[in-house]
């Protein structure tokens, strides 16, 4: 039997079947049926979902809102920040979440610009991460502030004092950039969602109908509407890329502009951007694996070919990250500045040295070891683990950059270790809130951009070149 099967794979006909089976774009389905599948995935909710949902709600209520309330009322003292580590896990989490948010834009904008077709079924899943990740990043920043109730002073609001924010400060740039990015990525999430919301509107009843009706804004799919939408999406796809780069570059400038050993580095901008993509892609893979594994009908839309493609990207990004890391390291090391050298030594041989090595293993060694193999990177559970480790590794990287590097400064009398306090429930709270938002969204909006998949189905076909049958893509747009 096995031999037979192996043999049959070589035959022309079954190869075509194989291609159709593995490629979503060659496996078309009537639009109505596909809609049905997507709607079904939203409606089918097991008790496990609700159990996890309830658990996460409790965690969010305790970890995020109760702890945050305490933080505001009692002061930042209940966190672990101290002199000299004035910035702690709050900033680590901010950078981390902004990093996560980069994947959405990367997948749906850059891949859209470059017409990478494998993106189609999961652009929305990635874009949701952008928006929800930025929400957590915003939370983390505001948690960090000593007097968050005055944070409106950081925004350029006309006032009787005629005192505006200080645009010399990287934090001001940061705030502008993150606001811009949050707004644009939310808009970029919403625009391609409109046709799918209209679809959902047409196929629902009860409160869901009203909900989708409000959100679909009265979309019918006229030529005009499609034209405006496509134009807007093209503008967005191009314009949001520099915004994305600027955001994480500016985040890196929060550190790089400071006069601290180890931070003042010109390569921090690209280093942070690639780090963000690294953790972002890892997170996308994790989300996709979970979505595919838990939601009904999703194994139709998300297939090993997608993991394979993302895995390739992850491998490249991991190499890029290693390149930038080494670049930053060797320049600092070679410079030989007393404090910088102390800091590097502290990273490796200090009490938190294990974290430095773990970072390198998780970010470089493990991805390189696993992702080179096509079969391995097509395996959802394996790539899920790689994604998870990359995210842990990237979190470690930010932890090393923020509190561990802050322990060392030019005043040795003040060197001191940082021990997190309430940051931990708050960090868990943001994580839980992210998952919670995602879970809610998965039940409220179509996670798969049906119209884009359909559009893709029109683009793809099989073509024979001599004895070989290959997949071709036509340029419709």
């Amino acid at each position: 039997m096995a031999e037979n099967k192996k043999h049959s794979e070589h035959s022309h006909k079954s190869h075509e079947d194989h291609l159709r089976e593995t490629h979503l774009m060659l496996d078309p389905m009537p639009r109505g049926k596909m809609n049905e599948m997507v709607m079904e995935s939203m409606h089918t909710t097991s008790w496990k979902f609700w159990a996890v949902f309830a658990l996460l709600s409790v965690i969010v209520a305790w970890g995020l809102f109760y702890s945050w309330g305490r933080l505001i009322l009692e002061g930042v003292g209940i966190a672990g920040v101290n002199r000299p580590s004035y910035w702690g896990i709050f900033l680590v989490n901010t950078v981390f979440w902004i990093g996560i948010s980069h994947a959405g834009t990367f997948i749906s904008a850059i891949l859209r610009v470059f017409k990478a077709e494998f993106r189609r079924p999961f652009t929305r899943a990635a874009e949701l991460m952008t928006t929800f990740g930025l929400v957590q990043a915003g939370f983390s920043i505001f948690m960090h502030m000593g007097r968050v109730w005055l944070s409106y002073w950081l925004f350029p609001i006309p006032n009787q004092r005629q005192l505006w924010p200080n645009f010399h400060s990287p934090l001001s740039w940061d705030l502008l950039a993150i606001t811009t990015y949050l707004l644009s990525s939310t808009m970029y999430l919403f625009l391609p969602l409109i046709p799918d919301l209209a679809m959902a509107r047409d196929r629902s009843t009860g409160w869901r109908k009203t909900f989708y009706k409000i959100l679909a804004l009265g979309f019918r799919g006229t030529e005009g509407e499609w034209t405006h939408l496509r134009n807007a999406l093209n503008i967005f796809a191009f314009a949001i890329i520099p915004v994305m780069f600027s955001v994480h570059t500016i985040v890196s400038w929060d550190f790089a502009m400071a006069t601290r050993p180890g931070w003042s580095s010109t390569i921090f901008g690209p280093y942070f951007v690639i780090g963000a993509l690294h953790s972002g892609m890892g997170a996308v893979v994790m989300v996709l694996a979970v979505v595919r594994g838990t939601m009904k009908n999703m194994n139709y839309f998300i297939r090993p070919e997608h993991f394979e493609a993302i895995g390739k990207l992850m491998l490249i990004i991991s190499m890029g990250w290693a390149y930038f890391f080494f670049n930053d390291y060797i320049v600092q090391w070679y410079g030989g500045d007393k404090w910088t050298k102390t800091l590097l030594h502290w990273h490796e041989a200090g009490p938190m040295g294990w974290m430095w090595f773990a970072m390198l293993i998780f970010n470089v060694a493990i991805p390189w070891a696993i992702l080179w193999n096509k079969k391995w990177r097509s395996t959802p559970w394996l790539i899920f683990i790689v994604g998870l480790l990359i995210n842990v590794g990237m979190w470690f990287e930010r932890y090393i950059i923020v509190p561990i590097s802050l322990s060392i400064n030019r005043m040795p009398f003040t060197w001191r270790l940082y021990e997190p306090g309430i940051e931990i429930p708050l960090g868990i709270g943001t994580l839980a809130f992210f998952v919670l938002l995602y879970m809610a969204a998965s039940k409220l909006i179509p996670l798969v951009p049906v119209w884009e998949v359909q559009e893709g189905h029109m683009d793809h076909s099989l073509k024979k070149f001599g004895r070989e049958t290959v997949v071709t893509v036509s340029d419709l747009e």
Partner: protein
Amino acid sequence: MTQERTLLAVFSDIDPAADALDQLRLMGVHDEHMNIISGIPVTEAMLGRPSQWTNVPRLALGGAAGGMLIGIFLAFISPNMYTIEVGGQPFTPVPPAVIVIFELTMLGMLLSTFLGVFLDSYFPSYRPMKYVPEISDGKIGILIEFPLPDEKKVTEVLKKLGAESVQYTEAQHL
């Protein structure tokens, strides 16, 4: 009253719909009196329709210019309203200004692009509209406005060309 009625023909594929449009045009229905609604983006070229006018790119440019002006205001004018010296830096240094102006330009551009879609498409609109839900299942609908040259003939032609249904439609709550 009859003037306001609309005929809706539903097709399940692009080619018959394109043929139907050609036929209608031959029968004297003006392009302006026809509208296509579809669940996936079917381009004008596919159906042989004149291309649609859109203001989105222009609005985006305008928004970018507006955002830039706000950026310039924030970067170069607002610091002069209450002059405060920090770290020996000038009141209005150029490099940070580049960042501020860039961010606000992009924000202006993207916001106005987004709003441009709303403006051009008359979003949000919750008024009753002529529509059938099958459109979102992948059908292509042709809305033909009255007055028609010959209602019966039109219906017949459309049916012959593969229209799944041809019927008068009334605006309804979506």
